C-alpha cells in the first residue's frame, strides 16, 4: 500500500455499546417437553443446562428426553394424525400455519434476543435474517396448504404420517420453521428434536403453537442430545425422517434406516467454493466473500469457506478483504453493532482451533485482524488462510467456523476442477461481470445451490439441498413440500 503522506490528527470515532435490552426476553427457569399439547416432565426426571456461549453462564435448563419421552411424543403425533388433523381440510390447516407465522412476527423481538442469547449469533442477524425468514417459511407454506393439487397437477398427493425431525444449532428457529412448516402444510404431524446447545427458541415456538390453538399432538417438541435424536429417528412409528446436521451423523442415520421404508431427507455439511473472476465487481465480491464465510460465525453449512481468486486480481482482492475484515466487530452478540458473535459451544471452538493449528502446520499463512476478544465465553476472530494447498485439511474438511482458505487459479477449467474436487456439494458462488461466462461456470459446478454475484441468499420459495456427502432431498419451495408427500 502506498505510504500515506501525512497523518492527520483525527478521532477514531469508535461506536459506543448498543446492547439490546433483555426486558422482552421471557425465559423460564426450566422447560419440559411439549407433547400432546401439554408441557410434559421428562420420564427420567433429568434436565440439562443450556448456557450463553458469550459468557458461559447458565440461561435455563431443559428436559432430557428418553426413549419413553420420544415414544410418548410419537404416539401423540400418531393420534393427532389419525384424529382431528388428519381429517382437517387444507384451508383449515393453512389458517393455523398463518396464525403461527403472524405470532412469530408479533414476538419477533423476543425470539431474536433469545436466539442470540442461547446460540451466540449477532442480534443483527437473528433480528434481520433468522426470525423474519422463519416467519416467511410459515407464511409461504401456509399458502400451499389448500393448493396442493395445483402444486402437483395430475398427481394424487397424500401426507406421509408422522415426521421425525432433528435440527442443528446454527439456525435453531429457522431450521425448526424449515422442518415444521412444510410438514404441517402437507398434513403430516411432527416430533421435533432441537439441538442440545440451542433448545430455547424451539420451546418458545412451542408456546406459540400452544397459543395458536393448533390441535394437540400435531407438533411435539422433545429436547435432549444425540441419544434423544437417535430415538426419534429410529422410532418404528415414524414415517419420515428429516435431518439437518453433520455428515457423520447423517451417515449413521442412513445406515440405521437402510432396512426400513422410512422416507428420508438429509441436509449435511458443505465446503463451498466461492469463485472470483478477474472481471468481477471486486468491491462487491469482497462483500460477498465476507457474507459468505463470516455470516453466523461461519456456522453455516453452505458457507463459502473455499475462496478461489483469479491470479490477476488476487492482490487487489486480498488487500480489500483484509481491510474489510478490519472493520468487523467481534463481541457481545446482543450488541446491535456486532458483526461476529460467539462460537456456539466450547466443543466447537476446540474444533475450530484444531483446524487453525492444522492450517499453520500445513504451511499456510494465517491472517486475523487485530480485534479485542472478550475474556469470557467462546470467541474466534475472523481468519483467512492464504498459500494453502488443495490437499490441506483446511481445504478438504468442513470447519464450521469463521475460517476462510484462499487459493488462486489461472483458467476457468482449472477452477471448476478444483471447486468440484471435494466430497461435498451443497453450495457455491461465482462472481463475474459477464453473464454468459457466469452461466457457463455455474452450470459446471456440482452443488445444490449456486449463487451468481451474491452469496447466502435464502427464500422460502427456493429449494435448498446438496449433492454427494452434503445429503439429498430438498427443503423449501415445491421440492420441499414434495418431500412430505406420497405421490
Amino acid at each position: 500500500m502506498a505510504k500515506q503522506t501525512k497523518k492527520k490528527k483525527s478521532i477514531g470515532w469508535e461506536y459506543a455499546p448498543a446492547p439490546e435490552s433483555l426486558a422482552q426476553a421471557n425465559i423460564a427457569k426450566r422447560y419440559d417437553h411439549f407433547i400432546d399439547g401439554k408441557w410434559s416432565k421428562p420420564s427420567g426426571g433429568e434436565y440439562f443446562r443450556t448456557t450463553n456461549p458469550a459468557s458461559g453462564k447458565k440461561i435455563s435448563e431443559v428436559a432430557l428426553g428418553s426413549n419413553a419421552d420420544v415414544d410418548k411424543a410419537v404416539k401423540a403425533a400418531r393420534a393427532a394424525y389419525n384424529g382431528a388433523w388428519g381429517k382437517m381440510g387444507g384451508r383449515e390447516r393453512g389458517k393455523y400455519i398463518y396464525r403461527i407465522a403472524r405470532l412469530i412476527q408479533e414476538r419477533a423481538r423476543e425470539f431474536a434476543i433469545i436466539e442470540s442469547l442461547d446460540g451466540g449469533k449477532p442480534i443483527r442477524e437473528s433480528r434481520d435474517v433468522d426470525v423474519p425468514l422463519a416467519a416467511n417459511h410459515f407464511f409461504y407454506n401456509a399458502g400451499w396448504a389448500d393448493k396442493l393439487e395445483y402444486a402437483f397437477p395430475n398427481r394424487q398427493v397424500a401426507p406421509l404420517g408422522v415426521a421425525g425431525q432433528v435440527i442443528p444449532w446454527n439456525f435453531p428457529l429457522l431450521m425448526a420453521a424449515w422442518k415444521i412448516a412444510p410438514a404441517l402444510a402437507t398434513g403430516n404431524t411432527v416430533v421435533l428434536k432441537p439441538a442440545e446447545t440451542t433448545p430455547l427458541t424451539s420451546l418458545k415456538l412451542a408456546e406459540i403453537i400452544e397459543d395458536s390453538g393448533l390441535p394437540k399432538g400435531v407438533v411435539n417438541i422433545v429436547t435432549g442430545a444425540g441419544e434423544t435424536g437417535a430415538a426419534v429417528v429410529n422410532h418404528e412409528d415414524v414415517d419420515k425422517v428429516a435431518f439437518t446436521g453433520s455428515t457423520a451423523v447423517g451417515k449413521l442415520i442412513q445406515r440405521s434406516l437402510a432396512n426400513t421404508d422410512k422416507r428420508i431427507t438429509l441436509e449435511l455439511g458443505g465446503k463451498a467454493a466461492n469463485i472470483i473472476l478477474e472481471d468481477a465487481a471486486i468491491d462487491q465480491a469482497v462483500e460477498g466473500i465476507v457474507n459468505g464465510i463470516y455470516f453466523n460465525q461461519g456456522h453455516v453449512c453452505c458457507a463459502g469457506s473455499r475462496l478461489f481468486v483469479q491470479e490477476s486480481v488476487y492482490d487487489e482482492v486480498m488487500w480489500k478483504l483484509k481491510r474489510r475484515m478490519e472493520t468487523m466487530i467481534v463481541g457481545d452478540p446482543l450488541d446491535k453493532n456486532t458483526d461476529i458473535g460467539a462460537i456456539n459451544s466450547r466443543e466447537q471452538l476446540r474444533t475450530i482451533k484444531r483446524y487453525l493449528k492444522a492450517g499453520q502446520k500445513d504451511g499456510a499463512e494465517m491472517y486475523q485482524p487485530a480485534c479485542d476478544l472478550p475474556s469470557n465465553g467462546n470467541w474466534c476472530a475472523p481468519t483467512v488462510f492464504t498459500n494453502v494447498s488443495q490437499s490441506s485439511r483446511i481445504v478438504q474438511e468442513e470447519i464450521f467456523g469463521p475460517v476462510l482458505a484462499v487459493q488462486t487459479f489461472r483458467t476457468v477449467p482449472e477452477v471448476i476442477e478444483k471447486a468440484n474436487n471435494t466430497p461435498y456439494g451443497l453450495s457455491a458462488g461465482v462472481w463475474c461481470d459477464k453473464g454468459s461466462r457466469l452461466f457457463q461456470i455455474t452450470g459446471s459446478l456440482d452443488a445444490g445451490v449456486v449463487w451468481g454475484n451474491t452469496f447466502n441468499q435464502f427464500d422460502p420459495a427456493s429449494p435448498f439441498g446438496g449433492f454427494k456427502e452434503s445429503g439429498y432431498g430438498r427443503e423449501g419451495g415445491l421440492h420441499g413440500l414434495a418431500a412430505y408427500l406420497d405421490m
Partner: protein
Amino acid sequence: MTKSRQSARSFQSDYANSPPVDQVGVAERAARFTARSIKTECKRAGLDMVLNMIDLTTLEGADTPAKVRQLCSKSEHLHDSILGLPTTAAVCVYAPFVKVARKALGDSSPVKIASVATYFPSGHTTLEQKLEETKRAVGDGADEIDMVISRGRFLSGDYNYVFDEIASVKEACGPARLKVILETGELATLDNVRRASDIAIHAGGDFIKTSTGKISSAATIPVTLVMLLAIRDHFFKTGKMVGMKPAGGISKSKLALHYLVMVKETLGPEWLSNEWFRFGASSLANDVLMQVAKLESGRYQAAQYFSKD
C-alpha cells in the same frame, strides 16, 4: 462528435478502465451502514462532526446579499445557547455573492467560502466563460470552487472532453480547492458514477461531489459508496487523498450519521474531518442542532427555537 467518440475509445488512461459496479451488491453494503446503531457519546461526537462538515448552502435565484450575510452569521453562530458548538465547514453561494460573503466573514474566519461556478447547475456554456467565472469567484475571495461536469458530453462518451474541462477549471482555481459535481442523478448507472469519479479524480479534483441539489435525484448512500470506493482505490494506488461531498437530500441527523459510518468503514477515520468530507445541505444543520439540544437537555425542543436563515 464521431471524432471525439473515437478518441474516447482509443484513450488508455486509468479512467477508461474503470471497474464494473454491481448495483445489487452496493445496495446490500449500503444497508449494512444504516444498520449501525450510534448511541450516547459516539452520537454526540458524530453530531459535532456533522455540523463541522456542513457546507451551509443557499443557491436560489432569489438570493439576496442580506440572505448571504445571514447565512454567514449562522455558519459561525449555529446555536449560541449551546456552548462549544463548532462552526460549519463553509458557506456555499453563487459566484456574485462571494464578495458579500468575504466581507461578512472577514479573512480570519474558520468558515470557508465555496462558490459554485461553471454555469451551475446546467454547465451549458463555453469553456472560456466557465474559466472566466471561476477566476472571478476566486479573485473575489472564494476558497473553494464547486464546478459541474458536462453531463451531455460524458453521456455521449466524450470522456476526454470532460477530463480536459475539469483539468482546465482546476488550473483556473489557482490556490482554491476544486469540488467536481458529477450530478449523479443524470448519469443513469453506477458504472457511470464510478467512471465519472475516476475522471474527476484523475483530472485533479480535490473533492468529488454527488449533486447540484437542483434535480430530484440527489445524494444517496449507494451512489456515495461508489464514489468513496473510487477515492479509496486512488488513494491505494497513489497515496493521494481526495475529499467527498454528498449534496442534496440529506436533511436528517440520523442519515448524516450513517454517512459518517460509511466514510469511516470505507475510507477510514482519516477522512472524518471537514478537510476530506462535507455535507452539502441547507436544512441539515437545524435538525442536528435539535438532536444536540436533546442530548444536552434530555428534551426535544420545537423547531421555532432554532433560527431559520
